[in-house]
């Protein structure tokens, strides 16, 4: 069993967590990695919690779900309350501090993701891509070029540029965070 990196992106319906998961998985493939992406949503209903999981590895991935997240992104307080503790010891917790006020550990990385989205692209809906930029900028789980390519390939028609800007904003924020 090769080393696996387990990533969980958690938020509420409409925040685009699943699309973010797909983009990240796509980027991993472009890097030549093995990847499995899964998701969950409430029972055949609208809204509610939404969650994407991505496992990245060099060799075959059997169990497809996160066991203990290496990286956890929380885009809502509910998500943070629910998943905040379900992490590998020493894992990385990233929260959107526009949405999340309480974190279970002091080691959480706080980034104003929604705010950045609004400021840099004018549309909160790009927060998911900003978050990807932060996450990858901090961890390097995939290469930036692959991630950009994935965003380009998967962004809905007519939103490519906006999303690339969002991504850049995320990377920038990660840069700043690392300097802190």
């Amino acid at each position, binding site marked *: 069993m090769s080393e696996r990196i387990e990533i969980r992106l958690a938020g509420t319906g409409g925040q685009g967590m699943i699309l973010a998961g797909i983009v990240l998985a796509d980027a991993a493939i472009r890097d030549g990695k093995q*990847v499995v992406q899964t998701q969950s949503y409430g029972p055949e209903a609208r809204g509610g919690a939404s969650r994407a999981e991505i496992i990245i590895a060099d060799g075959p991935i*059997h*169990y497809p779900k996160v066991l203990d997240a290496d990286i956890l992104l929380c885009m809502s307080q509910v998500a943070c309350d629910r998943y905040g503790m379900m992490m590998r010891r020493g894992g990385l917790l990233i929260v959107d501090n526009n949405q999340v006020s309480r974190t279970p550990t002091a080691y959480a990385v706080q980034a104003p993701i929604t705010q950045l989205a609004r400021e840099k692209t004018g549309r909160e809906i790009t927060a998911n891509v900003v978050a990807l930029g932060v996450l990858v900028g901090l961890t390097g789980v995939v290469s930036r070029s692959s991630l950009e390519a994935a965003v380009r390939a998967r962004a809905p028609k007519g939103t490519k540029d906006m999303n690339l800007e969002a991504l850049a904003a995320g990377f920038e924020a990660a840069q700043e965070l690392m300097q802190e």
Partner: protein
Amino acid sequence: MNRVLMQGDEACAEGAIAAGCNFFAGYPITPATEIAEVMAHRLPQQDGVFIQMEDEIASMAAVIGAAVGGARAMTATSGPGFSLMQENIGYAAMAEIPCVIANVQRLGPSTGRPTSPAQGDVMQARWGTHGDHPIIVLCPSSVRESFDLTVKAFEFSERYRTPVILLLDEIIGHMREGVELPADKTTLNVKREQTLVPPEWYKPFENLATDVPPLIPFGEGYRYHITGLHHDERGYPTDKVDEVEAWTARVYSKIKQALSEVLLYEENGIKQADTLVVAYGISARSARHAVEMARNRGRRVGFLKLQTLWPFPEEVIEQAAERIHRIIVPEMNLGQLALEVERVAGRRKVRRVNRADGEVIKPEQILSAIEGMR
């Protein structure tokens, strides 16, 4: 390299198209809807037909009607719809109409939890219809297998003139993996068997040596009768006991003759093992993970992944079980295929690992069983 990120449901649809599927009738249901959606988009691009029927009963009926018209036909559904299809699946079995039914399993019973995975329809896939008939049931455990086994499903359905059921589950159906599909898909194209005899001699249910008389599509000059009643070799209703018996014998024998081809599975490290894990579908992934963990701890654990669930691979299990002390059968249900494993391998050897609450079995749970703890 041309690896693309693809969902299991999508791979199932693409597998069908690669196999030559040119007809899909269905009714939306979570988590199988994506198969229909991909089909609605893709089939017309190659002159195929997608139709959303008024319900699952009609969907299954339309699939059979299209197959009789010569189409490579399929439908996709989940538990509630699968239950509704049973009567017409039985018809397809009786009239020996090739067709493929994908059931992307979700947590039951009843409406259950529509967005959660389960493996609760394994016995239903075998026994959901009234009366006795054989059936072929395949179960993928990855996106790539969803593609491959769908191709196989079409192959088997046409070659053996039988409905074939694909059992996916919510995870396999919605999961994305990077897959590299065969570049040349033409070799995967499944053709209907032909006949050499002229219309006057053609018997659509003839007792041939292969036990599989070809099914000539309606409209090609071979006018004959199809019925869900017991029938003679020409297809006409019969109440002669010997003709009823002949039908039964033939349809069981055609599958029996084909076992070596139809029984798909993967073995791993069975020879040296004292413990065997037998698994399928999504649970096979947890199981494989657990097996790796156990081996890392020095355990001699063999692994058998079943891709064909029905006909049940009796001999495979029997042989594997011979030198083995303990067989672990993890399932996302309350013990279904385990019943067959127990029957074949002996109850005492078998240890079931079950979970039917909508969560994937964790490798730890299987590992505990391997290690003899609970």
